[in-house]
């Protein structure tokens, strides 16, 4: 079975989203880090194209700092994040999300 979260905290302070996993591990994801790794077809597909636009790269008047507005579970395996700029097509599977954990321990293991 893939890793499962116990709780997901959208505003865990310092512009991070925190996930507490069933095995006790806690992952903290900076918003920009998480958003730039959005797995949706638009983001993940474009990332492989040259000169692809970076989401949120162009500042617009009155733009709010990037943050997740809300999140919903997708079945038993994933969470969908609705960003405050309207982007919401990214479905982050728990497996993928755990693999993204930027903590030193996980980064050392995955070599990322």
């Amino acid at each position, binding site marked *: 079975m893939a890793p*499962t979260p116990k*709780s*997901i905290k959208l505003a865990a302070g310092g512009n991070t989203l925190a996930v507490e996993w069933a095995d006790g591990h806690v992952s903290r994801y900076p918003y920009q880090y998480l958003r730039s790794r959005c797995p949706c077809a638009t983001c993940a597909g474009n990332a492989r194209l040259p000169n692809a636009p970076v989401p949120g790269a162009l500042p617009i008047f009155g733009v709010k700092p990037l943050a997740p507005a809300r*999140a*919903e*579970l997708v*079945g038993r*395996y994933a969470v969908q994040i609705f960003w405050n700029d309207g982007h919401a097509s990214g*479905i982050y599977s*728990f497996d993928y999300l755990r693999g993204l954990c930027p903590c030193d321990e996980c980064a050392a293991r995955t070599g990322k």
Partner: protein
Amino acid sequence: MPDNPNSLIPQVRYTIAVASGKGGVGKSTVAANLAVALHATGAAVGLMDTDVYGPSVPTLMGGNTAPHVIEGKIDPPVEFGIKIISMAYFLPKDEAIIWRGPMLHKTVRQFLGDVRWGELDYLVMDLPPGTGDIQLSLSQTILLTGAVIVSTPQDLALAVASKAIAMFRKLNVPILGIVENMSTFICPHCGEREDIFGHGGARQAAEEIAVPFLGEIPLNTAVRLASDSGRPIALDKNSPNGKAFREVAEALVEQVRLLSEQSAQGVKIQ
């Protein structure tokens, strides 16, 4: 896109997907008979035919009642005490559905949210073959209790069944068990046993991949006759196949019970 888990069917206790990967192994027959056998235990049961392209549940369950649409909600026909929904009800016999994915997704959502299921203990879902749009939509839209995998004993079918299992594992949907369908055939004339598609392959596969084995359904002309006449064999509890289906249903109920004890999955989002 997904709502809060199970908000579409808040009154349904357990949702069970009957899947196989491969076509023609008897998913619909197993789904219909499991629904009947579960109902025989006293449970309130619904049967949802999610095979939009090749719906066969209404043939298996008989009856000519069309669903009524009242105030935008569908009243499902009830056969043998089981509430049923199927695309077949909305389509003339010789018409075909030729749709791409997004329409399938919408249909799945409608079959869940726009049907008056009422309070159900079990909603049995007959899935189409494969690991595609319908399977993904279902797994994303609701918290499936689990999946029952149907396979014939032969390697060809088992190899494809393992793809379905891999899909459900990836989607975190528990595998409630494997059913071996079209198992041993006993000749009605001479009584000789013939393993047309082999025998025991599914049991062995279940052991190898560590999932429960729910039972064997013998290959028997009586099943085909009962299915074509719209009266599932599980209604006849004294027939060998009726008995086999009831045993599989009992094993399934036990797996559901075990699972609901150990997994209280509620991810809190704050």
